[in-house]
């Protein structure tokens, strides 16, 4: 009996090979196919996930999109700009001499994306909604009442003097929203989540695919023609992994990427197709000492550790060179930052002497925690461990997800870590009322004051400075400087470095300077392709 069968393996192999060859041939230009005619699309890889589309409740990474869709009353300009603010929904604004009454003049003739006019009533409704249920509602805490005496005037009466220009330009809790959408979301708190927008900015949401894609469409009715979008669409691929974003950028699959791994910047900087630029950012790193128990309840020991930290290496390795050593907790360029606040520098001999004089000549064991998802911290924490070993301090390092690290730290200071490494940034551009207060003001129950430090002298300084920020910013700056000097002397934390934000700009693209006041926002409208 002789049977004949076709050879299955051969058949499959031939078919598969033919398919791969055909596909590869078709795919000789992987970024293709490009639309030869049609809309002008700018494609971006961005890591920013959307935790909510509700502009009032927004308090996370979706700020990247919000800043392109919505507008606040005013924009805060980057440090070093000729003007501190640019008008947005408000054309002008003023404060009373005592800083307790602020008046904003609302621009006329502008409309929201749904066609509703922008007027004082809409602004009042937005501020009232933010005060009522914004995740960052606390920024409006000084406000006693909001009134709209006419179509173009909004007045804020305050319980105490406060810098409402800074508050009104916040990246969280200060977007002005179309009234009909606000009313709809009051009835249904999921109203915005399908990707509905109700802003007045240069873009509307064209489409949203969770976890994958956001497409923004140019808003033709945008009032500010000078700041209108240069393209029809911005097509954003949500790309959580920075290495993948780099692959997409270098392969030409996107025009721009917002997150590139720091450790790969040198490669890109040497590539003529890209320019690497760096800017001030509001992000800084600090190591908070547990002052609630021995041995770090002794300022002498804390100063010894502050002298042992290798600040330069931390910036070189942790920040890959993109950072400057901190002068206290206020990030570079953010009020009340001052270069006159003294810094520690590494001096191991002095550190040993201080430890010995504090009765710890034989060294000690300490436990440090850091956020495992933060690559910079993962890079520089071993440097601290090595440096501490040189002065006889054995560091037990524990990496945890930030939510877990933070939850353990808040539970009981007596059993918590000795050192908490934290990456922090202010909610809006006032590091006095945020960083200096949130991180170091006394409180019964710890939140972000994870040094558990209590100093009536410090509390008095920052409390008084906060009341002066709205009326006499120089005086406030002076008091905050005194408070930061005290932090230097008492060392409840070691201030490691202020990170710089890096932008990789492809050749042929004009990208605006990063604005540290909107740290998560990439402003797409000013981006244009060179002629």
């Amino acid at each position, binding site marked *: 009996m002789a049977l004949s069968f076709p050879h299955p393996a051969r058949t499959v192999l031939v078919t598969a090979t033919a398919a791969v060859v055909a596909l590869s041939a078709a795919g000789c230009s992987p970024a293709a196919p490009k639309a030869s005619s049609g809309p002008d699309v700018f494609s971006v890889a961005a890591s920013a996930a959307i935790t909510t589309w509700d502009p009032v409740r927004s308090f996370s990474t979706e700020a990247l999109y919000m800043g392109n869709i919505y507008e606040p009353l005013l924009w805060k300009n980057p440090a070093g700009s000729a003007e501190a603010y640019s008008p947005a929904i408000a054309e002008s604004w003023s404060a009373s001499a005592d800083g307790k009454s602020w008046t904003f003049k609302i621009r006329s003739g502008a409309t929201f994306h749904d066609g509703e006019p922008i007027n004082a009533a809409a602004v009042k409704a937005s501020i009232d909604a933010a005060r009522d249920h914004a995740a960052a509602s606390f920024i409006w805490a000084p406000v006693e009442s909001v009134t709209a005496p006419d179509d173009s005037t909004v007045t804020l009466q305050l319980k105490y003097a406060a810098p409402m220009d800074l508050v009104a330009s916040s990246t969280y809790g200060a977007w002005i929203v179309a009234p009909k959408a606000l009313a709809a979301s009051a009835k249904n708190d999921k109203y915005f989540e399908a990707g509905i927008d109700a802003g007045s900015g240069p873009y509307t949401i064209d489409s949203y695919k969770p*976890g994958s894609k956001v497409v923004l469409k140019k808003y033709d009715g945008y009032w500010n023609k000078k700041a209108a979008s240069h393209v029809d669409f911005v097509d954003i691929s949500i790309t959580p992994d920075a290495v993948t974003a780099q692959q997409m950028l270098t392969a030409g699959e996107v025009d721009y990427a917002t997150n590139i791994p720091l450790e790969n910047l040198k490669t890109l900087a040497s590539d003529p197709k890209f320019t690497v630029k760096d800017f001030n950012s509001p992000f800084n790193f600090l190591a908070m000492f547990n002052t609630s128990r021995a041995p770090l309840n002794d300022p002498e020991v804390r100063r010894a550790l502050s002298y042992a930290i290798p600040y330069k290496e931390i910036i070189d390795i942790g920040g890959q060179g993109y950072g400057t050593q901190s002068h206290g907790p206020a990030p570079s360029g953010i009020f009340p930052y001052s270069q006159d606040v003294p810094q520690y520098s590494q001096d191991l001999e002095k550190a040993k002497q201080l430890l010995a004089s504090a009765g710890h000549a034989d060294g000690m064991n300490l436990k440090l925690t850091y956020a495992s998802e933060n690559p910079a911290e993962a890079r520089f924490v071993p440097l601290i461990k090595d440096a501490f070993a040189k002065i006889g301090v054995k560091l037990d390092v524990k990496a945890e*997800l930030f939510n877990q690290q933070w939850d353990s730290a808040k539970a009981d200071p007596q059993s918590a870590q000795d050192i908490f490494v934290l990456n922090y940034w202010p909610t809006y551009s006032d590091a006095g009322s945020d960083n200096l207060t949130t991180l170091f003001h006394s409180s019964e129950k710890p939140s972000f004051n994870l040094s558990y430090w209590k100093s009536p002298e410090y509390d008095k300084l920052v409390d008084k400075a906060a009341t002066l920020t709205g009326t006499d910013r120089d005086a406030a700056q002076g008091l905050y400087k005194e408070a930061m000097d005290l932090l230097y002397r008492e060392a409840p934390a070691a201030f490691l470095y202020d990170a710089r934000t890096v932008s990789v700009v492809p050749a042929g693209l004009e990208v605006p300077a990063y604005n540290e006041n909107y740290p998560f926002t990439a402003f797409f409208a000013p981006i244009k392709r060179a002629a």
Partner: protein
Amino acid sequence: MLRFVARRLITSVLVLAVLTAIVFILARIVPSDPAVIYAGPKAPPAELDRVREHLGFNRPILEQYFDYVAKLITGDWGQSLATKRPVLDELFTRLPATLELIGFAMVLAVSAGVILGVVASRRPGGFIDGAIRFLSIGGISVPAFWLGLLLQLLFVGGLGILPATGQFSNSIKYSNPISHVTGLPLLDSMITGNGVAFTDGLQHVILPALTLAAYPLGLVARMTRAAMLDVMNQDYIFTARAYGLRETAIRWRLALKNALPPVLSIAGMAAAYALTGTFFVEAVFNWPGIGQFATSSMLAVDYPAIIAITLMGATAYLLANLLVDILQSRIDPRVSMS
């Protein structure tokens, strides 16, 4: 057979119930406050209290668990803490992309794995067998994220013939938009005759599918080889040879059919395991599927999402197991369904 399936489904429900309890308790005893995850780290205490009240986090954990299970049964899988959307919506939005990826990877893994296994079994210990063993063990051992990067370096950076990431080129949405038919975009582009989108989608799926296929391909190839060696020593093979049947026919028709049940079993398990494999592969290739959602949910300690993904993975395992048993009984009548 119906009794067998019913019995298996009942035990599957029990397994899922126990699993739900374990994952729920594990997710809730790790130090992290779900209200903070929901409202944001700087949310004021009053807002955190409102969230705890609204989402029931202030109730006893057992009460929360039973409430969760009761809702689970009615199809309410809870709300993602990170995205504020129903977890099922999140999963179903991403499922088509993951299904297409796993489908391609498994077709590749099983077809290539079986062929390589049969070829390797022809001369055990020979050069070809050694080369295939090297490939198979390499596929099993090499971490997916590393293999993915290597493939990107070769096919994207080096040869420049395939795209690096994503499911389709960005331009497809504007130049050749895909009409919705089944929800599986590649299939939809084929059904609707959208050749440009189909070709573009196929180019995009090759590298992630190859990466995801490496592990099951190695397993299938090794299992096929072992099963073939076993079968080729059976008496009926000698009888077939004695009757003058061609070696190719003996090997590819007679022997392979009898060697398939264990291969099928391992392929079924590998297909279910591929769901967890997508965690890495989707990150490397920015594939918009469940794997990416799983990774971000774990990093955010988003426990409703984590439980849902775990349940989905477990269900996939149980269904794959059941399917394999049924298929085995079809292929080999000696396998009883009792």
